[in-house]
């Protein structure tokens, strides 16, 4: 079993994972946060791209399930000296990895790793290129579900929830994973971005596309998710400069103040305060940014549990 994306995740599979994450979250409230579930299992965090936040979230998740964790960062390792993904995978295979959490700059690299036959381990995609970041979308959905339904979350989807995702859709694996997952869970998704930062053909996406943030916010959505905008995009003529971006597509104080008090403000982090999101919006009680981080550990525990305990079942 692998978790490569949310595109092909069925509704009951997604809800099952979110429900297990609820169980994991309950454990996190105990004094002793550790479960013995994955004792003796080895999880490798294979990171070809720097991401301290995601790596430590997976590391915490694996350790709280009592797995042994090996962090394999491509920076400064043989990988940066030209070792191929295949050789790296075979090395991990030889070391007896049971699960591999992979972050890679190339879209599809986790898919290649999982289907190549180079390694038997289960694979979790921790973000690949501009393709998918399934655990981020799952933790976002988990966060939304908790805010909307509280203690009655279990077993539920996000039916009828209205979610506006704003920013660099073109390059965002978070946006893609969220679009597929939120639609599967029954939410209505609207994407808002400069036209340059939307893929050329999104006709088949289960989402509407708009260019006007104010119009989207006037609809009083349940969730506004702001995506990180990479400063280097402006050099490739995606938009003129950061001031114009912030004015047109940023969640500034004025826009934030016009939102209903019930609207959640989400951001996958790290944030560019003052660019895509104002400090006031980011720090307000409506912001879920810190909950997202905490929930990330629970969701990743659930993903690791499903990945590695199902393997145990097969054995």
């Amino acid at each position, binding site marked *: 079993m692998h978790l490569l994306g949310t595109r092909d995740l069925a509704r009951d599979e997604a809800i099952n994972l979110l429900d297990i994450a609820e169980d994991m979250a309950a454990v996190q409230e105990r004094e002793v946060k550790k479960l013995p579930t994955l004792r003796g299992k080895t999880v490798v965090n294979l990171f070809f791209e720097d991401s301290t936040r995601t790596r430590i979230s997976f590391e915490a998740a694996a350790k709280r399930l009592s797995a042994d964790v090996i962090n394999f960062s491509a920076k400064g390792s043989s990988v940066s000296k030209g070792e191929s*993904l295949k050789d790296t995978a075979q090395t991990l295979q030889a070391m007896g990895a049971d699960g591999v959490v992979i972050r890679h700059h190339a*879209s599809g690299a986790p*898919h290649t790793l999982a289907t190549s036959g180079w390694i038997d381990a289960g694979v979790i995609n921790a973000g690949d290129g501009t393709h998918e970041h399934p655990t981020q979308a799952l933790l976002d959905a988990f966060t939304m579900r908790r805010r909307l339904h509280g203690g009655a979350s279990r077993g539920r989807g996000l039916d009828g929830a209205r979610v506006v995702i704003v920013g660099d859709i073109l390059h965002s694996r978070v946006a893609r994973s969220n679009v597929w997952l939120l639609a599967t869970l029954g939410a209505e998704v609207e994407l808002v971005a400069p036209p340059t930062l939307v893929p050329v053909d999104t*006709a088949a*996406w289960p989402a509407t596309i708009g260019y006007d943030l104010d119009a989207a916010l006037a609809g009083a959505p349940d969730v506004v998710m702001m995506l990180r905008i990479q400063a280097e995009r402006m050099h490739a003529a995606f938009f003129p400069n950061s001031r114009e971006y912030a004015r047109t597509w940023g969640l500034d104080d004025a826009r934030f103040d016009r939102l209903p008090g019930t609207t959640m403000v989400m951001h996958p982090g790290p944030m560019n305060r003052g660019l895509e999101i104002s400090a006031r919006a980011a720090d307000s009680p409506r912001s879920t940014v810190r909950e997202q981080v905490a929930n990330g550990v629970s969701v990743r525990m659930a993903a690791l549990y499903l990945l590695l305990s199902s393997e145990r079942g097969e054995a």
Partner: protein
Amino acid sequence: MRERHLITGATLPTGERADILLDGGVIGEVGSIADAAGATVFDADGLIALPGLVDLHTHLREPGYEQSETVLTGTQAAAAGGFTAVFAMANTFPVADTAGVVEQEATLGRAAGYATVQPIGAVTVGLKGAELAELGAMARSRANVRVFSDDGFCVSDPLLMRRALEYVKAFDGVIAQHAQEPRLTEGAQMNEGALSGELGLTGWPAVAEESIIARDVLLAEHVGSRLHVCHVSTAGSVEVIRWAKARGIDVTAEVTPHHLLLTEDLVKDYDPRFKVNPPLRRTEDTLALRAALADGTIDIVATDHAPHPVEAKQSEWDAAANGMVGLESALSVVHAAVVETGLLSWADVARVMSQAPARIGRLRGHGEAIAVGAAPELTLYDPSAASVFDLDRLAGRSVNSPYLGRSLPGRVVATFHGGYTTFADGAVRDAGEVAVLAREAFDG
């Protein structure tokens, strides 16, 4: 002692049944041949005889990238695919941008003896797109270069392209353009469309090809030059070329077998065997390309045979090399894409895979109709039942074929070059024998 072959009962491209006598350096007789003393008899009942196939677009990789292919192994692949002549692209190391390199390639080809190797010269020094290579020196060299291409790179500078088009008129040359606007394809990984957006792969938009072709046909018209467009891959490009031809512009165009048969949805599993430049496109594009080949808008099929070592394809998609081997599978793929679908006859296949490429490349001794006095370049093809295309069908050094495991119709049964067999009974002929026969045939 030159070989004599009596081929009996073959079906000519016209559909007539005939015996063919390959008599040393010439086709000696075509028709009903009672007997030919000393000839090896080859029963070709049920087989189609085609003039030896000519590939205007082959990457032989030598010098410089011999781990992928050499002139010897690449022409062995050619023989296995029914080809008797290949035009060798210039992106070797060193680049084929001087008379010395093109003469070396031609010499290696003659020595190997499996097919005529006609070098293509680079348009610009080192394929850098900055200054013209010594086009005249390559044309006047013993390699007799007439086709010039920076293939792999586009001659994107419009002024340089204009000058190149003009300059080669002096010796009846042609510029074969790799039409790819570089700025529009920075980091491009696959056809830009719905699927690229979903897979998160940087798009290679059709307009990046079409805009260069539009510019180049207008340049060719303005300076009265001859232009050839490599590996046309989009429906829009077909429209531009159709317009240019209607206007009387001297443009020819090629399509690869893979762009006739394969589509972008194969990229879904990120299998780098399907990574190629220009990328696999939509079904609509393959259909437009087939129609264009049938109505003459596209003149020829050329393989863009691009061998790569296994490690270049065993990787994540972004890191994988572009390209597919194509010589060995070309005829079966054309059979599947345009013959079985009723668009082309076997006479059309002879035109687009032999006669027209030889004419565009100004290559003598190839692409002639099967008739008395013609050069003894011949391919026998069994058009019957489909079979799974497997590793046994590959004869070059590299195995990056997108067709492995796929069922394809027909197979090449024998190839004759210079009057001797280079491929028969499912096997490439022994290299030592072929080298000796080649010396007798071409150096005598």
